């Protein structure tokens, strides 16, 4: 079990160099059946990561480039009149795939955004009174440009909460960048050649294993103290919700699993905290490190 997660991470690390921690978090998100939000400037490898992830996991993959004129039906699909059978046939949109990459989600109009986010939460699409379930597993990776860029519609807080994790890849270090320039990583063309290390059953087993990771009382208390700090210190206008606490607990367990442990440590909480809480606390990616460090300094680890 431990080997499979390691495999996924090492495979993807050959694709995106020097970003093992972010890749691990993306895998954590997948193991927790959550949706992932990647916030970055263009050209940082967001698309590569999501595509690679789908390929490694052996899942079907669709990509939608969000633009301001994209309509809800362009994602969910539409009913088309079938002249031969004299009936409306449902033509499923790109959302009916196991991994959906919603590229530059904040370029679309709020109406389209909410159509996607609704589907993410319900895991089904209702069209003309008919309910069409989405495939299992269903995993949305949305990418987002930093909000100061022009022509963007920022996602509202309530919708940001639907994303399990938010990560940002950031610039590669010098060594990784050198390798990139020299083309030592797998090329985009060879994306499809990534070995598929997982089938659906194996993924389900892994997702079940997350729940078996031991979360000791002290770690739970630490999570509660962290969440309470955001609520009662008065430093945050959007404190963490119980949904965030649940996400923290789950992500902590999954993180411990990727570290091949069957128990969680306070270190695991700290590793996932920024990704789980950052977008929920409405903190921009570049301030995140300082704010999170401040919280860790103020909240003592429970032993």
């Amino acid at each position, binding site marked *: 079990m431990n080997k499979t997660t390691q495999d996924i991470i090492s495979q993807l690390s050959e694709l995106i160099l020097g970003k093992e921690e972010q890749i691990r978090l993306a895998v954590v998100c997948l193991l927790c059946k959550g949706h992932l939000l990647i916030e970055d400037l263009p050209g940082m490898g967001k698309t590569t990561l999501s595509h690679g992830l789908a390929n490694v996991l052996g899942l079907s993959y669709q990509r939608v480039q969000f633009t301001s004129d994209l309509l809800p039906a362009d994602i969910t699909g539409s009913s088309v009149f079938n002249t031969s059978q004299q009936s409306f046939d449902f033509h499923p949109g790109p959302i009916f795939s196991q991994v959906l990459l919603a590229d530059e989600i904040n370029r679309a109009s709020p109406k389209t955004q909410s159509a996607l986010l609704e589907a993410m939460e319900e895991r089904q699409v209702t069209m003309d009174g008919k309910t069409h379930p989405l495939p299992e597993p269903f995993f949305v990776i949305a990418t987002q440009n930093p909000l100061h860029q022009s022509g963007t519609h920022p996602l509202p807080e309530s919708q940001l909460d639907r994303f399990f994790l938010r990560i940002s890849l950031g610039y590669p270090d010098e060594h990784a960048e050198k390798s990139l320039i020299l083309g030592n990583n797998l090329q985009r063309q060879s994306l499809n050649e990534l070995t598929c290390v997982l089938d659906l059953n194996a993924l389900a087993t892994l997702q079940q294993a997350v729940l078996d990771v*031991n979360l*000791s009382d*002290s*770690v739970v208390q630490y999570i509660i103290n962290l969440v309470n700090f955001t609520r009662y210190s008065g430093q945050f206008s959007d404190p963490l919700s119980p949904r965030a606490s649940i996400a923290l607990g789950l992500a902590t367990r999954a993180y411990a699993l990727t570290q091949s442990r*069957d*128990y*969680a*440590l*306070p*270190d695991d909480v*700290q590793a996932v905290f920024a990704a789980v809480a950052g977008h929920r606390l409405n903190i921009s990616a570049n301030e995140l490190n300082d704010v999170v460090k401040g919280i*860790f300094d103020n909240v*003592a*680890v429970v*032993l």
Partner: protein
Amino acid sequence: MTSDKLLGGQTLLTTLLYGLVSLLLFNSFGLVFTCAMLLIVLFKLAIYRSLVQGPSEKLVNLLALTVILVVFVAIGFSNLVEMFVSLLLGACALKTIQAKTKKQAMSVQLLNFFVYPCFFIFSQNVLSLLFVLVLLVVNLAQMLWIEHGIALRSAMRQASRHLLLALPLAAIMVVLLPKVSPFWQLPGANKTQTGLSEDIDPFEISELSRSDELVFRAILPDNAQMKPPFYWRTLVHDNYDGTRWRVSAHHDLPLQAPYRAVGENYTVIARASGKTWLYSLGQAKSSTRGVNTNQFGTLFMQKRLSSSMEYQVTPIHTIGPGLVNWQYQLNTALPDSINPLATALATQWDAKTNNTAEFIQQMKLYFVQNSFHYSLKPPVISDRNSIDRFLTETREGFCGHYAASAAFMLRAAGIPARLVSGYLGGEYNAERGYYSVYQYDAHAWVEYYVPQQGWYRLDPTAWVAPDRLSGSLSELTALEDEFKDNLGLSLMSYSNLALVNWVRLQIEQLDYQWTRWVLNFDQQKQSRLLRDLFGHYHKLLPGLSVFLLLIAIFVARFWYLQRKQVVRLPEAVRLHHAICRLAEGELHKITPAQALQVLQSQYPNLSQELAEFNQYFVKSRFSQAQLTKSEATRMKALGRLIIKKAKK
């Protein structure tokens, strides 16, 4: 501001308070020690202002040695109490200079609970009580600040609340706990203040320094016998050497002569004086333990009066065989050939008159006709024939002058006479019905002997200043300015302002109640109060309260132990905390892995042991699997090993 700076501020506050205390006790400590304390305060201030470096250990030891020397030389072993209190004060002040950590600062604050109440050794009035209370509140607030970082204002509020909470408990303990006489007592602090003296030579004094310090209070029965003027007899001076009137060696011999009680009992509440003598109207006997009557009929104690004391007085009249030969000689003794003029006057009057009463009449006539007048600032007469010069040249003086002159002339005529010093008058508090007698009420008068009848009082000052008899000196309008000049700065000097006087009287009354009901709350008063409160069960109460207290202690201990067990950390965590303390910073607040890194970087030679300990620790705290017995033993051993090696 850094925490160091704040800690410095707190200890500076304590040092300043020490400075204030030693200034207030200036009279007891003397100039040298007070200056030494002020120097220490200045030094601390300079350190706080970063004008100078904090002292090295060597310097502090040197300073401590200096303080000890100063105390030994300036105060000395003759005043044991002052010596120990000043040593304590000096040591604490030096500790504040040295204190750098929270723990050291805390130890100073804890010690203050002992240091500040030492103030009571020197003064027990209600103002001192308030002062010490304020000091204790400040001290508590400082402790709250140092330990929990609570801001000064809310710390003060909390500290006051704690003190208020403690008050009912204190009251219950005072009222209910059985009064046991102390097993040992501090020797009283000596007082070197103004007051009566055992030797009197009025002619050497140019200015009578008077203070408004309270000497005693008296509760007199309201009957015809007890009417002013009140002459409070205290010391009898019968030994005259030509300049000084001394108290004879027989002053503390108990009364041998038979006596009978005359009149009603009254109560006197004396303030700590550091002396053995007490105060009574006329001749007196007391039923209070430890209070004796000497052969002059004045009261005295075996020990020095080191704390406030209440005693009962019965007026008596001795029925003696009269003066025996040596007493007659002592009371008529005069040195040869001094004051020829006064002697001549006395012989002249003696020849003219038939009895003592007529002689005194002649003397009164002399004083009244020759325009003598009363003054608190008489010129100094340092002549051998001082009385002659007083009678012929200066003709102004206070009670001592007139009393000494009259006694001299009585003796010159062969009439036994002696000087008596004590207090005259007293301020009446109409609301509570008691008299307060202050140091400025000090007075001197004469007693002369009439054969077969006994001793009679004669106050020659009354001939010159008849107003002096009617009340306290403070009420004497003619001398108002002069009197206030002598007082210096005190509330009494502004007593003509109605509000100030009202405040003064209120404080005075509060002090009276405090002295009466708290300081002098003895077994007798306790049982009376309990009888009033609880009827005839009162005898059981003190025993019952002790019993209840024991039960309360027992229950509290159980409760505490139980509570402690709940909060008790698991052994692994305690061991981890102990290891975390090996390094700087609050390692127990970060994750074990991070703490491990810090520790390994500080103790590279222990890095293997640390890693192994951490492995067991993490397993015991976070994993579902319990440590096996051998693993637990191994972890404990590792923990101890790490601490032991790291401390080397």
